[in-house]
């Protein structure tokens, strides 16, 4: 049922708060609500962070609990988390959302034109396929008779 667990080395995405949008690794658990967290390669200082603002990712690092930042950084860079993260769909969706919000009026116009052209092409192909299908269907009907 649950596939991602809170464990030492789990990489989490911070969803809100001062470090919103950054990745952190869980270094230790403090109590039921908080974890000691560190993000050496994402600009988050080692600190306590509530679980509520963390969203677990698929990545797990290997280091012992309460390991120094240096070791966390080594593990992070060994696994190449930053690149792997950028390749996930999650990160791409976030980036797309940001780009959409930054669109200027001119960009919106260009997008509209591009979408229109794309849809025309798709429709054209679709119509072609439908035509062929309907022809085949008519042939079959004739053959059956």
């Amino acid at each position, binding site marked *: 049922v649950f596939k991602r667990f809170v464990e030492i080395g789990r990489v989490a995405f911070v969803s809100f708060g001062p470090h919103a949008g950054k990745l952190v690794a869980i270094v230790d658990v403090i109590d039921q609500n908080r974890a000691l967290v560190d993000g050496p390669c994402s600009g988050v200082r080692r600190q306590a962070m509530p679980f509520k603002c963390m969203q677990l990712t698929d990545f797990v690092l290997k280091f012992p609990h309460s390991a120094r930042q240096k070791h966390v950084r080594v593990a992070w860079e060994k696994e190449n988390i930053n690149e792997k993260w950028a390749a996930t769909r999650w990160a791409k969706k976030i980036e797309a959302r940001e780009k959409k919000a*930054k669109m200027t*009026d*001119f960009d919106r*116009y*260009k997008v509209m034109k591009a979408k229109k052209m794309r849809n025309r092409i798709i429709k054209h192909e679709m119509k072609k396929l439908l035509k062929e299908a309907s022809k085949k269907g008519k042939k079959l009907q004739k053959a059956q008779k």
Partner: protein
Amino acid sequence: LASQMAGEKKAGDKKAAEAKPAEKKGSQKKLREKARKPKKHHASRNPVLARGIGRYSRSAMYARKAMYKRKYTAPETKIEKKKKEKPPATITKPVGGDKNGGSRVVKVRKMPRYYPTEDVPRKLLSHGKKPFSQHKRKLRASITPGTVLILLTGRHRGKRVVFLKQLATGLLLVTGPLAINRVPLRRAHQKFVIATSTKVDINGVRIPKHLTDAYFKKKRLRKPKHQEGEIFDTEKEKYEITEQRKSDQKAVDTQILARIKKVPQLRGYLRSTFSLSNGVYPHKLVF
């Protein structure tokens, strides 16, 4: 002693000899200096006995400062000058008619023929109340020459238009260009315009200098000689495009069109209009 005296004499003679021409030069210099600089002021000739109490009385000080030698008159004031240059108060004018005495003495400046019932009270002084022509014109930082603006009011609402310059009254001079979206050289109000971040490079474009507010101002005829029925005919109902407007439009647009063609898709962008639809909120849009 004698040798010393001799030495001194020689020195004295030399000095005297030097002094004489020097004195002459010096005195000349001093005169020149006096003419250039004011003389250095003497310290107070009234020594202080205690704070606020001087040694000498007023009259003693008068003598000590030689005020009897230093009597100045105030420079002739403008009023005195004006008083001297008074024009004559009356004029004799010739009068026609028989047995009339030939001339009359007429006052040049006559008394007013009407006094209002209530005196108008004197207005209090105010400062900083300037007429409209002297107001400070502001321009939003987002609006620079070449910016694409979206007009929000008027018959061209929703159209995207190129900004040229701000006129003297603060209104913005704007053009379609005409060939793209049928907006001519026109004035637009800064407040009723959205400035987009899209800019056309208008670096070397020369805008004719006669395009001012007076050029664009609406003309209204004001000579109703006839009675009411005919007044409305004389006022311009149909606006006619003058040849000068056409030529000015052409002159500006050819320059701008060349620059618009360089940017891909910009021409189509200027042809399109802006509109809101479901889910589009202006405060969330980045222009």
